[in-house]
């Protein structure tokens, strides 16, 4: 591991970190599900961690490692508290939708409502039920046997 080789490693690792960071950024800005937003935020932190460790390796220093450990710690705390608030938000609006919270808008702006919702591409779910013991359940050919979505 000499200097000349560590630079390409650094650059590649930094590129990976940058990609992860950017993807996480896009995810936060785009997805409306609160949980997915937090996942994207965690992904940004992952990108940061990779970058920090790459620099630490390049410089031969512990600084990056230590910082990543603290990032990890804080991410854990943040996730815990944030999820509590997500649950509070859910209990108020019944949705995990970031767009459900619009009351801080200006008075002359109307409520943003999804207009062009894509057609539901799932049929309504019908969960299988267990027949009581000893009873033959009725057969239904039309019932989908597999759920496609969770």
């Amino acid at each position, binding site marked *: 591991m000499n200097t000349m080789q560590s630079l390409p490693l650094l650059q590649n690792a930094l590129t990976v970190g940058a990609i992860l960071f950017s993807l996480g950024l896009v995810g936060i800005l785009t997805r409306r599900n609160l949980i997915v937003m937090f996942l994207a935020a*965690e992904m940004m932190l*992952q990108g940061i961690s990779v970058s920090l460790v790459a620099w630490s390796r390049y410089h031969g220093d512990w600084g990056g490692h230590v910082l990543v450990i603290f990032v990890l710690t804080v991410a854990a705390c943040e996730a815990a508290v944030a999820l509590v608030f997500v649950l509070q938000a859910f209990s108020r609006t019944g949705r995990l939708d970031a767009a459900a919270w619009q009351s801080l808008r200006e008075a002359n702006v109307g409520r943003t409502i999804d207009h062009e919702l894509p057609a539901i591409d799932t049929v309504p779910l019908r969960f299988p039920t267990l027949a009581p013991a000893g009873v033959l359940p009725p057969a239904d050919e039309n019932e989908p046997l597999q759920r496609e979505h969770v």
Partner: protein
Amino acid sequence: MNPVSFDPLASGPLLAGAVLATVASLWLLLPNGRDTTTARWLGASLGLAALAAFIATGRRLGGLGEEAVFLIVSLVAVISAAATIVSRSPVYAAIWFALSLAGVAGVLLVLGAQFLGVATIVVYAGAILVMFLFVLMLAQPAGLASYDRVSNEPFLSALAGAVLLGVLSLSIGRLSAGPASCCDLPTRATATPLTATPSAAEGIAAPATAPVATVVDPLAENHVARLGGELFGRHLVAVEAAGVLLLVALIGAIAVVSRGEAAHAAEATTATGPAAGRSAAR
């Protein structure tokens, strides 16, 4: 070991193409009205093309083995990350995120951060991700919710992300091995004194930051022990503070939850109707 000199001009168009491909692929892949299969396949292919371009602009590491390992783990990380943000089902997104974490752990291990790689798996995938899944279990409506099938300003966001990526790549590409202070890692066999390094021969007396000149070799055996020594040595106060932070976060989370429950109980007794859309599972 021929170092590849980075020529910005040559890879400029490549980088631009990669950025454009990223924009297009993200825009196509993100959940929106066009959920046609064609769009998805097109987006996926464009994304792979962009990825290939980024790989092409990257550096060649030393040996094939190193390069292959690095490529595999980073591909896992990146592709899973992309899948995370484009999945329509949040549960699937969480699973993809777990895979991305695995990839990231691999990258960290390649970089020699043994403790951190494992810690990532343990803390993130093991704890945080599970918490997310628990919340999803509590709060996710049956079937796909409407808000999972639309995105907020996909084009502009994809553009922002891709431009950011392009700028960062450009900056990363311009890094050069300048007369940095302490960048020479000693080999496993020898601990080269600093004064013998060619960089120090530049005549800079600045690396008289002697304590920092303790060069770290992450691949040594006692990596974790040394990391521990560093943590509890130089960063003791921070470590203790982090512990307190964890405790505070825990207490705070419990407090908010209990107050929330009390408030809900008060609402339930005073109000006649239930809160709009309260989940029965709550």
